[in-house]
Structure formats: C-alpha cells, structure tokens
C-alpha cells in the first residue's frame, strides 16, 4: 500500500522530537480525524537551522511530517514556503489516494510553525496565511 520511501520514513522518521524554546511551533489536525502534526522550527537569520516534528496519526502522517522536515532543514524561510504537499508527496514517491490529506496536513503544519515564528518576531512572510486555531478535542458534539 505504501511506497518504500514512505515505509522508510515511517520506520526511521527523520527529525522526530521537540525543540525547546523553538522559534516557531505549529500544530494542525485534530484527533477526531485521527491525525495531529506538530512542527518545531529553530530559525536563525532566516535560515531553518533545525526542525523537529511530532505526529499522532497513520503511517502516511508520520512519513509526510518526516519528509516535510527533511525538505525544509537548512533552507531559508522563503524556500520553506515553497514546500507544498505536492513536493512532499513527490519526495515520497507518492501516496495512496486515501492518504493525500496527510501531505496537506504536513504542509499546513509547516506553515503554522512559520506563522508562529513570524508572529513572535513581528514579521510578515509573503503568501503565508493564518492557520486555523488548533483544538485538540472536537468542537462539535459527538454525532453518535
């Protein structure tokens, strides 16, 4: 079901962990859908010096967050803005159709972390939109 690359990133996730006093942290997704991603950025002089992630989710969720961190590590903030879900998917040699949303989540997590960094530093990153606020628990009442 998953490509070799996905399995590799799932089994050996790169940059898993957290960064204390990170320049920016972004958390997206919700437990209701079964995916939560958190990305930590350590940015110095507009360069992403370090990046870590934590993910609650399926194999694809783990792999896409791992790959997303790989793709932005050492890059400038501007370059990081170009890491789209498509780029993540391509780097993983593709995802099953039902799992494409994971790559979107990875893109969102990254952008949420960048937003946090921008906000903390009072700067504006071109093209970056404010992420939806993260709610760990579901907002709505259970349907069942």
């Amino acid at each position, binding site marked *: 079901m998953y490509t070799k690359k996905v*399995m590799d990133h*799932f*089994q050996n*996730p790169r940059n*898993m962990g*957290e960064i204390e006093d990170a320049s920016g942290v972004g*958390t997206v997704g919700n*437990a*209701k*859908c*079964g*995916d*939560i*991603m*958190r990305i930590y950025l350590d940015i110095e002089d507009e360069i992403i010096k370090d990046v870590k992630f*934590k*993910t*609650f*989710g*399926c*194999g694809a*969720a*783990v792999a896409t967050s791992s790959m997303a961190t790989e793709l932005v590590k050492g890059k400038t903030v501007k370059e990081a803005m170009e890491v789209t879900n498509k780029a993540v998917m391509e780097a993983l040699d593709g995802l099953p159709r*039902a799992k494409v*949303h994971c790559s979107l989540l990875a893109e969102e997590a990254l952008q949420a972390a960048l937003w946090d960094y921008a906000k903390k530093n009072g700067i504006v990153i071109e093209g970056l939109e404010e992420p939806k606020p993260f709610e*760990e*628990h*579901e907002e709505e009442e*259970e349907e*069942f």
Partner: protein
Amino acid sequence: MNKKIYLDHAATTPTKIEVVEAMLPYFTEKFGNPSSIYEFSGQNKEAIEESRELVAKAIGANEREIFFTSGGTESDNWAILGIAESYKTKGNHIITTTIEHHAVLHTCEYLEKNGYEVTYLEVDKDGLVNPDDLKDAIKETTILISIMLANNEIGTVQPIEELGAIAKASGVLFHTDAVQGVGHVPIDVNAMHIDLLSISGHKLYGPKGIGALYVRKGIKLKSFIHGGGQEKKRRGGTENVPAIVGFGKAIELAITSMEAESKRQADLRDYLIEQVLEKIPHCRINGHKEYRLPNNANFSFEFIEGESLLIMLDMKDICASSGSACTSGSLDPSHVLLGIGLPHEIAHGSLRISLGDQNTKEEMDYLIESLIVIVARLREMSPLYEDYMKKQAKIER
C-alpha cells in the same frame, strides 16, 4: 521470530488442510453440476446434502432450514431484504443495533431509503444491548429484529436467548448475524428463538465465498438471487460444490473442537489482557469482560493511532487489526468503538487481537513485549502524549 504471527482470525482464517483436501476432488474429478441428471452428478447432490446436515447440526436446525449463499454478507442481505419484502404488508419497521457489521447496517440504510423505518438500538459501554430497550422499540409495524450474536470488533456476545424470547413474545421475526459466533460459542436456534441466522465459511477455517442462511421452517422469505431451481428455488446459481463440501467439513471440525479450543483460546486471551493492562499504562480493554468471544481482545492505547500501531506490529511479523478489516483505509474510526461511547481519539488507537487454533502462549509473550516497545515509541512521537505529560508535570509541580 521469523514466521508470521497471525492474530486476525476475526478477519479471516486459513482454510484447514483437511478442508482443502475434502474440497479438492470436487474441482477436477467430481466436478459435475449437481442439477444434472446423470449419476456422475448425483454424488455432488449427495455431498451438498451431507454438508447441509453438518451445518444444520452445528446450530441445532433441520437441514431443510439451511440455504447456502456466497458468504456472510449475502446471508445478511438476504435475511433483511427478504423479510422486509415478504412481510411488507405487515409493517415497515426493523430494529437493529448501532454496532452491527456493515453487511447489516448498509442493508438497513438501503431499506431506509426505500420506505422502511429502522431503529438502531444503542449499546452500553461494554457493547451490550439492553433487553428493555428492545422491548420498548417494538411496535405494531415491527417486522424484523436483527441483532448480531457476537461483535466482530469488540467480541461482545449478546444475550441472544433473552432477546430472542422478547422477539418471539412480540411475534416479531428474529435474525442474528452469527458470523463471528458459530464455532466459538454454543448456538441452538430453537433454545435461542432464532428465526434466521447468518454464517460464513471463512471465519471458521472453511473456504471464502460460501456461507449459509438458516431460515426457520414456515417463514416466508422471498428469493434474493433469482435464477435456476437451486436451493429449493430460493437461491439461484450453480451450487459451489467444492466450497459447500469444505464448509461442511470446516463447521464439523469447528464444532467438534469448540469446547476445548474455546477454553484454550480464552485462557490465552485472558493472559494477554492481564499482561497488557498491567504492563502498558493508559490502556483499556473494549467489550464485555465476561460475555465475550473466547478469541477476542480489543485494546485502546491512548495518545497513539491504530494504523501506525498495525504497521509497526507488521514489521515485527504480527498480523492484527484496528477495528474491522473492512473499515481500515477509511478515515472514520470504527462505528463500533464510537457505539460503545469511546471518544474519537481513543477509538483511533484501538487494536483488535483475534486468536486462532494455532496461536501459542509464546506468541502472546512476543506480542506483549512488542506492544510495550511499539506503544512507547509511538507515544514518544505523539504530540498528544507530549501535551499530556506536560500537563501532568504542571500538576505535579
């Protein structure tokens, strides 16, 4: 360990060697169409009737009440759609539960779109139907009650006899999806007041693509698959002779070994549950403690997600499932786990272990050890766990 440790017998079972051997002659030698007139086909007719007797015996029915189908799903569809149609002049109301298999649920939803009314009984936190709820739900227009004997995900076994008695007292027909129950728990259609019962071959070490529907004598049941005169004109289609023979053999073997195997597997299961609950924090067992299939254990591990867990188990050569096999790949957590009231994030972290006749205590130990490592690893990766730990730390400070 090198060989696969298969712990997903609720999804499907290997076909027993004896069963395959019983089937083999019917592919190449005794391949005749049982409806044909020549003697060469007569033996196939006999083989079918022998299997029918074995299936009937397994549930305390008469062989004339057994109809072969292509599997549990067709049996469920036939029972529900057939009764809905045959008794539509009597009423249009059907009662079932929120935790049925999709073969029942989707069929009921289909009926809802076609003028029928369906009541979905809720279950308690252990997955049990409350008999009083059933009594309250029955009305003038109720024509069918369909409640599964044993749940495929959490293993809860319903008080079928009591539910059947309520149905009977109300003069409503009673169907039970016994796909997970047959061969694991004793079943007697008469003592349990069951009017229709679904069975599937591949859940009891028989072949896939074969099942049966028990239909109590005297019940009108419209054909579901129209065709030739097979199965007393009630189910068209050339009989799947090898599969029918294999099904008969498998159910015979299952019933013969049921008492001993159930005991053995229940012991393994209890050991597994005890160890996991003891050794892994933030973990719960789903389903009823006592009224449960001997081979089922269903856990929820907080802060982690089921698919990752399954893949990591798979990397350790352990085959298991998270919710029903049918639902994996979808995004929603299992309707059964939601049905017993689990919040979504807990439901997502579920693991179903379903044991079989080849599983050993050593395998349980290996599973337990693997789970300890994997759950810890996934929690280490989990932002939910991180948040939880930080909260705890704050509280402790």
